[in-house]
Structures are given as structure tokens and as C-alpha cells.
């Protein structure tokens, strides 16, 4: 077993796992954070995307011990005090999802984008979600939702 310390959504956690289990398993099965979805387990679909030390990663393609000492943000970390993050609200208002399976990962990829680029073009948004597949809603509404969230965040920052 491997003992590790990891910060998840601002909370310090100590967990013991088999050394070759994944960060996704740790989040879902050990910490009960099931917003990151278990899709392909091969890095292809993006349903498991979380931020690891501020960068997007596929949680299914990171071994839990590789994340020892790191800080992780999952989709559960987006809302603050019961209030949805503007990205989440815009996703919902623009009908940017139907089944929602891809949404957690999508939100994290878009969140990472907006941290580094407050006014992305539609092409830049598409490039940021190149590793996230949506198999039921499609991408148009989603790109629009990100544009709206970006505009809101910009307006709130001035």
C-alpha cells in the first residue's frame, strides 16, 4: 500500500491506496467525489478531467502516487457556498449538456482555459476541449456557454 497526502478542493486528505490505482479511483471510490466520470479509462474521452497543480489532466491516466503532495481541483470544487460558478450556470442556461456525463470534465477544461485566457475565441475554446468528447449534446451550445461565462467573469472583474 502507498500512503499519500493530497489536497483536494482545498482540503488536505491522507489516503492509503495500492500503488497502481489511479487518481480517478482515489477521487471517486476513496473520497466519494463522483463528479469526475469513469468513461474510457484510456485518456480518450475527457470525462475524468480534473486540475492537478492547476493543469488539466485525465484522472484515469494519473497513478494516485504520482499525485502525492499535489493539489487537485475537481468539478465539486467549482461551486462556492452553494452558489454555482458562472461557467456552471452558463452551461445550464445555454443547454450545454443533456446527459451530463461529459460535463464535469468539460467544465474543468473550460475553467482552466478561462484562468489563462479571459477572452477566448470560439476556436480557442474548441482547442481547449479537444480532449473532451460529448456524445449527445454537441459542441455549439457549449462553446456559446463558455463565451458567456467569459464575458460575465470579465464584467465582474472590472
Amino acid at each position, binding site marked *: 500500500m*502507498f500512503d499519500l497526502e493530497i489536497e483536494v478542493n482545498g482540503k488536505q486528505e491522507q489516503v492509503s491506496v*495500492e*500503488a*497502481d*490505482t*489511479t487518481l480517478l479511483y482515489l477521487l471517486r471510490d476513496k473520497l466519494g467525489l463522483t463528479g469526475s466520470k469513469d468513461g474510457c*479509462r*484510456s*485518456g*480518450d474521452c*475527457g470525462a475524468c*478531467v480534473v486540475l*492537478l497543480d492547476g*493543469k*488539466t*489532466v*485525465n484522472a484515469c*491516466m*494519473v*497513478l494516485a*502516487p*504520482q499525485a*502525492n503532495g499535489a493539489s487537485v481541483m475537481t468539478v465539486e470544487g467549482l461551486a462556492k457556498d452553494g452558489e454555482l460558478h458562472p461557467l456552471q450556470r452558463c452551461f445550464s442556461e445555454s443547454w450545454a449538456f443533456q446527459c451530463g456525463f461529459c460535463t464535469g470534465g468539460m467544465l474543468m*477544461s473550460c475553467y*482552466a482555459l478561462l484562468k489563462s485566457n479571459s477572452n477566448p475565441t470560439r476556436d480557442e475554446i474548441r*482547442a*481547449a*476541449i*479537444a*480532449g*473532451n*468528447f460529448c456524445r449527445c449534446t454537441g459542441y455549439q451550445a457549449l462553446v456559446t456557454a463558455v463565451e458567456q461565462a467569459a464575458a460575465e467573469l470579465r464584467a465582474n472583474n472590472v
Partner: protein
Amino acid sequence: MKPAEFLSPTTLNDALELKHKHGAAARVIAGGTDLILRMRAQVLTPSLLIDLQHAALNNIKVSDKYLEVGASLTISEVLQNTRIEDLFPAIHMACRKFAGPPIRNRATIGGNIVNASPAADLVSPLIAYDAEIVLKSANGERTMPLVTFFTGAGKTLLKDDEILTQIRLPLSAASTNAYFIKLAQRNSMAISQLNLTTRLNLNRQGLIETARIVLGSVAAVPMRAMAAEAMLVGEKSSEDLFYAAAAQARQEVKPISDIRASREYRLQMTQVLVRRALLESIANV
């Protein structure tokens, strides 16, 4: 997956000692984007994983002759490096076609090399810029041209006690007259059906002094089309010349049919894309 032990040495020397002691039973893990899948499929069942994250292999520096790139640099880090973009733009282009952002944030340049997939995207531009690699063990180090490192699909000259520490790009090979093309079934998140890099260095009279045509996924190992390259040297760039060199390159490759493309398609596209890449290489002259 079979449980393995996991150690995170904090210096390269500690990592080399571990590799020395455990040999083939131990596997180095960089980003893990190839290794984790292989472990999951039980293709690899190491008893020890040696984590390279803290072994200080992710710096880039310039010496008088080389740009020295640490093996653990991620694809995202390579993309962000303006020196690589300016001096060795075909490498930058290959990174832009690589998977999607979350994989790029993990996958490393060293892992792409050692994994030795014939479809690896960074290998053809690295070879096109005459990259050399540094392999270290507890007993010393050796360097070799990257093009000689591969012995078959998934096979390399890396010894059981060695770690790839650095990729050296000769500054004399820097060129913006270079182009990378990846042929794949979609723009992102796809493995190459074929990838290739062309690099030309022109002399003051505008004649081609050095030419590289390097192809991936057209043989068991990434290869140079050397006869086609030779046709270019000493000549003035022209469409006819590039057409002839592309036809020659097609004669040199030995593709197979697999799930991603047929042999015939790869042969045909070799010719089409070598010509296109050569033309693009001089588009800004």
C-alpha cells in the same frame, strides 16, 4: 493491474541507483500516458515504478552547440518554449497536433521517444533536426543520434539500467525552413496514420545545403528517406525537384497495413505529403 511498488527519487542519481539495482523488473514512469495503459492491459507488469517527476529532468538550456532539452519536459512545456518554436519550429508543430490538452500536460518528450511507437509524433521532427540523446546509467553515460536508437516497433537500444536524460538539438541544424505533417482521422485525439517532417537549410545563394525527410508509421522504425534527401542537396528549390524527391521517398518507405491505414494508402500519401511538406518548408523564403 498487478500492484507494483512506487518510489519517487528526488535526484537523478537516486533514480539511476534504483534502475541499477532492479534492472528490467523496474520501469521508469514519466507522464505514464503510455505505461499506465500497458500495465492495465498486462503487457507490462513491473514490480517497481520509478517516478521521474522529481528527478530534475525538466529543464531546457543552451550550450555553445546545443539546445539541451530535459527528457521529462511535457508536450505542453515544449509548446510553451519560444526557443524551440523559433529555432526548431517543426517540433512545435508536432506538439500542436498531439492528443489534447490534458494528455499534453502529462505526456513527456522522453516517454514519446522511449515508448518507440512507429507513430510517435515528436520523433520525426527530432530526427529531422539531427537530435542526439543522452542515456545515463549508474556507471556512466553515452550519447547517440536519435535516428539510430530504434531497433523495431517498441524496441530500442536502451539498456535495463539506463535512463534517457536529455535530448540535444544541434544549433547548427536549426531551421525555420521545416514542416511537420500529421495524417490522422481527425484533428485531435488521434494517432498518426503517417507523420513526416522535412527540414531544409539553404546557403547564401539559396541552394539547398542540408535536407532531411523523416517519416513515421511507414516502417517499423522512424526513417529518413536518404536517397530523396540526396536528390535535393546542392539544388535550387523548385516544384519539379520536390515532385521528384517525393516520388523517390515513396520508393524508400516500407509501410504495412494496420487498423489505422492500408499499405497502399500510406505509400500514396507519402508521395503527396513529402511534396507538400517540402513546398511548405520554403513557403516563407
